[in-house]
């Protein structure tokens, strides 16, 4: 009894020796900033020393807050459906006939994912400028003849949606395609024997079976879209359309570095943190994606 207890204590000491370096990183750069932001958000620049909801009241009444929410929401409303439909359509088409063509196309769809962040802004700034873009005929057909026509503030949400779609779609196609590969061959064969055409098989057999991956994609897309920063920030400094507080993260940045008001910056961060934590909690505990890991 004592020896086995001692052995157990020794083996958990070993296990902790292995886990400790990572656990320190998790604590210092995962947990601590979240806790610190929550604390900081209850302080306020007006009443230093006392804790309260002043910063929340100030952020919620800031003239820039609700427009930023609206911009991010509009970006999501455009991007997420386009990405969901585009990913499903392309993955189903690729899965219709699996072979060399299908795997080559998957790689090609993936390549734009190499151009992200500031490089993506650079590339798509040029791609949307009718004066230099290889897509100029299409842009002219849409009535856009110079960069001033294209980069207006009302076009920003669709532009960011386009950039996010083209850089992210390849990765999601890989996921959806993997999910489609997981469907038992017999199921598809028997549907065909029952007379289902390619549309019937895709809509009635394949789509319901990959539904949970679509939900997974939507939750992650929601959490990612909340965070948008690079695109509006750089497009604003290049084209002067939008503003330095177009998105929520930009607003947080403006609070911290424009006004030196860390309490309000932390408040914006806490709002973003709560929303993405809700998405993450839902994904980890309410879907069966990570069930084995959580329960093991």
């Amino acid at each position: 009894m004592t020896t086995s207890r001692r052995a157990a204590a020794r083996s958990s000491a070993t296990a902790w020796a292995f886990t400790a370096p990572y656990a320190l990183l998790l604590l210092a750069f995962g947990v601590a900033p979240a806790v610190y932001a929550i604390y900081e958000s209850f302080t306020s620049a007006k009443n230093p020393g006392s804790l309260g909801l002043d910063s929340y009241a100030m952020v919620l009444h800031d003239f820039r807050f609700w427009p930023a929410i609206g911009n991010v929401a509009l970006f999501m409303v455009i991007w997420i459906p386009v990405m969901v439909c585009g990913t499903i359509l392309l993955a189903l088409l690729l899965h219709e006939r699996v072979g060399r063509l299908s795997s080559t196309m998957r790689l090609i769809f993936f390549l734009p994912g190499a151009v992200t962040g500031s490089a993506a802004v650079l590339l798509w700034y040029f791609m949307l400028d009718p004066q230099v873009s290889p897509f100029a005929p299409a842009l002219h057909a849409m009535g856009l003849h110079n960069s001033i026509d294209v980069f207006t503030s009302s076009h920003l949400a669709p532009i960011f949606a386009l950039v996010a779609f083209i850089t992210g779609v390849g990765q999601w196609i890989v996921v959806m395609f993997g999910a489609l590969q997981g469907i038992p061959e017999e199921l598809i064969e028997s549907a065909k024997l029952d007379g289902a055409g390619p549309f019937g098989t895709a809509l009635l057999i394949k789509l319901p079976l990959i539904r949970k991956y679509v939900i997974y994609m939507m939750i992650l897309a929601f959490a990612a879209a909340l965070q948008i920063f690079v695109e509006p920030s750089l497009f604003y400094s290049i084209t002067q359309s939008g503003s330095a507080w177009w998105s929520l993260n930009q607003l947080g940045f403006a609070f911290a570095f424009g006004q030196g008001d860390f309490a309000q910056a932390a408040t914006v961060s806490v709002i973003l943190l709560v929303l993405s934590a809700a998405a993450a909690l839902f994904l980890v505990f309410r879907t069966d994606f990570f069930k084995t890991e959580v329960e093991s």
Partner: protein
Amino acid sequence: MSSHSLATRTEKTEPAPARTRRTRNRGWKPRLAPLSILRLLILFGFGIFCLVPLIWLLLTPTKTDAAILGDFPLSFGTFDRLAAAWQHLTAYSGGILFKWMLNSVYYSAGSLVITIVTGLLAGYAMATMRFPGRKTILTLTLLSMVMPATVTVLPLFLEINAVGLTNTAASVILPASFFPFGVYLAFVYFSTSVPKELLEAARLDGCSEFRAFISVVLPIAKPLIGLLAFFSFVANWNNYFLPYVMLSDQDAYNLPVGLGALMAGSPALHPERGGSFLPITRPEVALAGLIVVIPIALLFLIFQRYLVRGILSGSVKS
């Protein structure tokens, strides 16, 4: 079934059903032909939409600013012009481009090493040992893995600022070393591909856990190390928000933040705003973009398999 074997199965079974299905379609359903054409049109159309911008980016630094405006967008200029663009770009701000390159390599490599060492150890321990606190760490790892890393950037700045470390390499390397997705990959890998018998044999031989890890586990973890290195490098090379917030000194920027500063600060992208004697024009900026993108694009092409497997084990399981 593990994600791992799913990925290998995918590769193995691909050619066979394709062949049988193709012959069957040909014989039975000639009415499918227009649909097949539509399918190919959509796939190739989208493929062109993916490739054209990348080809444009490759060609543009070989042209003059005037040729970019006047010539066919997908034409090649001259190698001389490419060399000139390189000279202008490297002369910009006293050769600051080289500093940005070095910083990018330094930050990415630093985070990569810490991520791999800590991730391997923790993933292995959580997969093969049972200890108090394990479930908490695992759950926190899953949660922070599905939350975008950018959500903590501003709070991280407040924290790093409180300890006076902003504007240092550590302010970028250390937070980026916390890479829960890597730990998750290691955990999945060790849960599914280290045979229990192997570890028990090592323990019976009287190996300490650490010796067993070095001599038995590490040799079979080589594919995992490649996977971790790949994903960590891609994430950190492209990192913009964290270094942008942490670093105020231009000399400390990494390439993506430097590129952002170049785009915002030079008149290349908005010549209408007034003349400048700087020879930084569209081809120079495009070349800077290309320098940021090329390492990642090459990694994508070389390590396609890693890429697919890593992405699948992050989500697809059966």
